[in-house]
């Protein structure tokens, strides 16, 4: 999320002063908006220039200046909300590669490698769940953010489980295609899977 859209979101709650925006921005940063608070005032100037917010008269710039969102600003924010984020680059890329490498390395048990990652991920999920258990009743944004993290980690574990099972079935198959996998150069696999960088 850009500083622009964060400020538009704050202003869509009602008119606010520069200082107030800075403070609210800071309060929510780290939770959902990991952004640079130093950019607040310059971004407000640019938003005003672009007609997405307007300020009280021509008073001097600074903390006491009041801002409100314009119709164009509201439209910009609504458009941003509905624009799909970029999910095209695969988040488990590196783990997939590690497993692909492990299954070919002599003397390496790929299932043991899978278990190392599975355990690490479950431990991480335990930490997030404990946080949710302790805080979620009082902090709805936190609960939502933690759930997102849990679902993401969960999907990685599910991939590990399925890879584990697939490798076992392949190893149990009579010698042939599955038991002696053709070397598969990574770039070809990428192109096949349609993965964009």
């Amino acid at each position, binding site marked *: 999320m850009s500083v622009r859209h964060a400020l538009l979101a704050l202003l869509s709650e009602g008119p606010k002063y520069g200082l107030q925006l800075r403070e609210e921005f800071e309060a929510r940063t780290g939770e959902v908006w990991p952004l640079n608070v130093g950019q607040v005032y310059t971004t407000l100037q640019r938003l005003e220039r672009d007609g997405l917010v307007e300020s009280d008269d021509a008073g001097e710039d600074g903390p006491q200046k009041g801002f409100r969102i314009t119709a164009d600003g509201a439209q910009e924010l609504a458009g941003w909300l509905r624009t799909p984020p970029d999910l095209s680059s695969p988040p488990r*890329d*590196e783990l997939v590669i590690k497993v692909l490498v492990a299954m070919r390395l002599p003397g390496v048990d790929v299932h043991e490698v899978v278990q190392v990652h599975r355990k*690490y991920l479950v431990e991480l999920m*335990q930490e*997030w769940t404990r*946080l949710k258990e302790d805080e979620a009743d009082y902090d709805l944004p936190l609960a939502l953010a933690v759930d997102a993290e849990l679902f993401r980690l969960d999907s990685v*574990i*599910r991939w590990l*489980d399925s890879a584990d099972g697939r490798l076992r079935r392949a190893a149990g198959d009579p010698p042939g295609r599955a038991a002696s996998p053709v070397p598969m150069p990574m770039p070809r696999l990428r192109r096949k899977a349609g993965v964009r960088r």
Partner: protein
Amino acid sequence: MTALELRRVSKDYGEGPAEVHALRDIDLSVEAGALVAVMGPSGSGKSTLLTIAGSLEDPTSGEVLIGGTALSGMSRNDKARLRRRSIGYVFQDFNLLAGLTAAENVALPLELDGIAARKARVTSMATLEELGLADRASRFPDELSGGERQRVAIARAVVGERRLLLTDEPTGALDSANGEAVMRLVRAACKRGVAGVVVTHDAQLASWADRVVFLRDGRVADQTSPPPGPESLLASGPRQAPGTGQ
């Protein structure tokens, strides 16, 4: 206190070429107040472990202790009473009594313990309410959805003065909000001192546990270390999981 202890427990089914080693040399202990999750692929022995821990089946070898007492030294009657009073079960197929309403199913273990019907009813209603089932209390099991039956089974398992709670895929038919409600109830029981074992494929569910044990081919293949506590996450921001990010 160790509420549940398995010492070198093995379980074989069948004989000769058909022999299955469902469990091999399992050592596991669960302290009062702790929640342990058991994860593992289908057929790895999770349900077998649970039925043996709950004294519903005997191990082929090894010893099961509940509250420090070895099951092998107990009479049939003592075991039956232990099961009724001290252990709450949730099985993969729920096991609700078809002729009783949801509220009566939940109240039953309390009444069997000699608690007055009226009081049992109040406790039963309160537990159903926590699981969002207050308005389903007077329905019979066949008038409930799968997820609702599952929650009634959970409610029945946690009521009363249980010392051990054994659950097999307790949230299989539930969406994530109801799954979380179930796990909060299980955690609440553990905070009262109940020892819990949750068998599951689901990592989100397992992540509510203090410790996660990974079963593989009837053996304990691995287990998590005790969690460091949530402060570490907040202090350092989200850590990068292996391979999840660039």
